[in-house]
């Protein structure tokens, strides 16, 4: 079993250099960097797919791609962004920051850590190469609903295996996080002294362990339905296609909190630093996170209000979904209270954090609208849903990661990033984000269906605005890449603290953080 071999780390023997260093590394900082770079590259790939979608939707009619390829793009954009950009991105942050935040020398299981990462490039090579197979890539939407996904070609099998591999990677990563947090904390670092980012990741890791196996199970059922004559989802053999949706969303709803809880953690680190106040309501933050995680298991059917559930079911899932607004509201109010009467400054990470609080809350409110069952019959599968989940995923998860990247880049590289360019990136990103996705609310309310390459003429104006915004949003990310590269290559020397009296052990080590930190555990008062 790949447990930490401490003696190995203590020796400081020569590391392999070049590409072998990255392939064989067991260092949490190296692996964190790999995860983050992988996430960034998948973000670009998924973004390109989004631009193909928006190019087609720039005008009514079919201009750029054929409808089947359009469907492949919507499917792949989601799979790549969820499993390739957001999840590995957060694992990258966890790798870099968790050991430093709890005063541990490394992750508990370094070799396993290496393996968790290196599964991913293979998984995504398989997933992306399915686009080249006869009949093209998966085109059933990322949710892979049966019976459509049972009828797909070979690409569906490749997608299923890729999902299995991503699942193994996330589960191994989650095990590593839990063991690290439970067993590797510095003396005095009690659970309720842990930074909130550590807490949110601990809870996320438990969610991953609980639901990634369920996803693996349900896609395995798809696979056997496709090839081995089982009938989980085929009524001809006594199965039920709606069963797929139930099992999928039993995974799927906790999954959306897997995608957002670490983001909550990141901005709970950023806001206190730039407010120069401790986080307001730390304990309630922890409890709210746990509450959200618990509720995520009993709300799944709000994704499928229109399948013909009995009234009692619709009511239960409506009320339980609305209940989630309570712990989420606690969080939002705590962030605002942290800023209240703080000595605020607005460096790039803080700008991102404030934007996340504001825009995520808009996404939360549109989520509440969708939770109202009778209203959902109007909104279901329209662009309103697309607008909703981009407000929580892009301006929630992705922008929190960008803020986190600016926040910790000086610690990672030893250089300050270019503040002016960082702010420029923030404003371009945030303005174009809203230009892209805000009109989609109106499109959805007016009845434009999602996952459709063509639309009725009355939707043209908002689609034109949305497409222009999307290209601006995509291009502004090139600036982000430039700022990161510039920061890695040089810049003003960052101090150990980087910011003004930030809280957390990561600011007590030099900048850039040495290859090995906390080989002697710090003492936490």
């Amino acid at each position, binding site marked *: *079993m790949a*447990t*930490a*071999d*401490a*003696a190995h*780390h*203590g020796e400081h023997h020569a590391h392999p250099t070049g590409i072998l260093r990255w392939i064989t590394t067991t260092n949490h900082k190296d692996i964190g960097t790999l995860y983050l770079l992988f996430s960034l590259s998948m973000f670009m790939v998924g973004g390109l797919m989004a631009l193909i979608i928006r190019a087609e939707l720039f005008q009514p009619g079919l201009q750029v791609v054929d409808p089947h390829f359009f469907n492949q793009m919507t499917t792949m954009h989601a799979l790549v962004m969820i499993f390739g950009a957001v999840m590995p991105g957060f694992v990258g942050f966890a790798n870099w920051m968790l050991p430093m935040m709890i005063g*541990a*020398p*490394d992750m*508990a*299981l370094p070799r396993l850590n290496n393996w968790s990462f290196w599964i991913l490039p293979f998984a995504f090579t398989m997933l992306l190469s399915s686009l080249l197979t006869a009949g093209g890539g998966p085109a059933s939407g990322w949710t892979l609903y049966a019976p459509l996904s049972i009828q797909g070609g070979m690409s569906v099998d490749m997608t299923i295996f890729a999902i299995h591999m991503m699942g193994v990677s996330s*589960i191994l990563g*989650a*095990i590593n996080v*839990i*063991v690290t947090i*439970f*067993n*590797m904390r*510095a003396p005095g670092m009690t659970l309720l002294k842990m930074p909130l980012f550590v807490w949110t990741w601990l809870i996320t890791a438990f969610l991953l*362990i*609980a*639901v*990634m*196996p*369920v*996803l*693996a*199970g*349900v896609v395995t*059922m798809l696979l056997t339905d496709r090839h081995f*004559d089982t*009938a*989980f989802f*085929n*009524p*001809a*053999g*006594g199965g039920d296609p709606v*069963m797929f949706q*139930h*099992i999928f969303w*039993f*995974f799927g709803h906790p999954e959306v909190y897997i995608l957002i809880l670490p983001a909550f953690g990141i901005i709970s680190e950023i806001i206190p630093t730039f407010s120069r106040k401790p986080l307001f309501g730390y304990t309630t933050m922890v409890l709210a996170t746990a509450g959200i995680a618990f509720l995520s298991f009993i709300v799944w059917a709000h994704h499928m209000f229109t399948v*013909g*559930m*009995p*009234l*009692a*079911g619709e009511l239960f899932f409506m009320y339980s979904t609305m209940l989630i607004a309570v712990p989420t509201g606690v969080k939002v109010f705590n962030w605002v209270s942290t800023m209240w009467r703080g000595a605020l400054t607005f460096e790039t990470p803080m700008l991102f954090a404030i934007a996340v609080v504001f825009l995520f809350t808009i996404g939360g409110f549109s989520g509440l609208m969708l939770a109202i069952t009778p209203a959902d019959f109007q909104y279901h599968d329209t662009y309103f849903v697309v607008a909703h989940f981009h407000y929580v995923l892009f301006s929630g998860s992705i922008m929190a990661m960008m803020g986190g990247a600016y926040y910790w880049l000086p610690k990672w590289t030893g250089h300050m990033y270019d503040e002016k360019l960082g702010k420029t990136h923030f404003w371009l990103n945030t303005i174009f984000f809203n230009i892209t996705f805000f009109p989609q609310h109106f499109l959805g309310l007016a009845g434009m269906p999602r996952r459709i390459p063509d639309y009725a003429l009355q939707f043209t104006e908002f689609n034109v605005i949305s497409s222009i915004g999307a290209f601006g949003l995509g291009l502004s990310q090139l600036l982000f890449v430039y700022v990161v590269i510039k920061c890695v290559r040089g810049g003003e020397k960052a101090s150990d603290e980087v910011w003004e009296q930030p809280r957390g052990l990561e600011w007590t080590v030099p900048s850039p953080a040495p290859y090995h930190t906390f*080989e002697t*555990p710090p003492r936490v008062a």
Partner: protein
Amino acid sequence: MTAAAQQPPANRRLILRLVLAVFAMFGFGFALVPLYDVFCDITGLNGKTGVTDSRTVEATPIDKDRWVTVEFTGNAASGLPWEFRPTVAKMEVQPGALTRATYIARNTSNRTVVGRAIPSVTPGEAAAHFKKTECFCFTEQYLDAGETKEMTVQFVVEPDIPRSVNTITLSYAFFNAEKYVKQKTGKAKHQDTKLEKAHPGKKS
């Protein structure tokens, strides 16, 4: 030495538990398949039609004051080379009265094909009060090449059906079940195709 070196046994225990949890959740995903059925049976939330026996039906008083329209539809799913339709489009029935309806199925291919019918009742709130004593959907149905068969469903609309329900639609989708039925030795037994006018209801 670092903290990690002192803790391998603790790590090992925790890892073991977490790995067990992963396998348990993988199994739980599969267990959800029967669990959903059990849960829906207990709570009656599944919107499926129920089964009853003729003795219970005979013990139920017929609501002479009320007529409910029952509509019939049916279709053969793609992949099943059958023609399939109800013999009557709709009938008026009295709640509590056992009623018989028939469908006609014809195999248009030149081989024996086995099909399975999946019933569905709308509106959903009527489903729990729509019960069958006999139905061709209880078992797989075999049709020889070119064979035509009349298929029977015997049902009762329970008297406690909500007052707001005046029309019930019974719909069957017939699927090709060849893939799922192991080649049975010999032919399946034919159902009695003779029509009895037991409770024909008020045909319209």
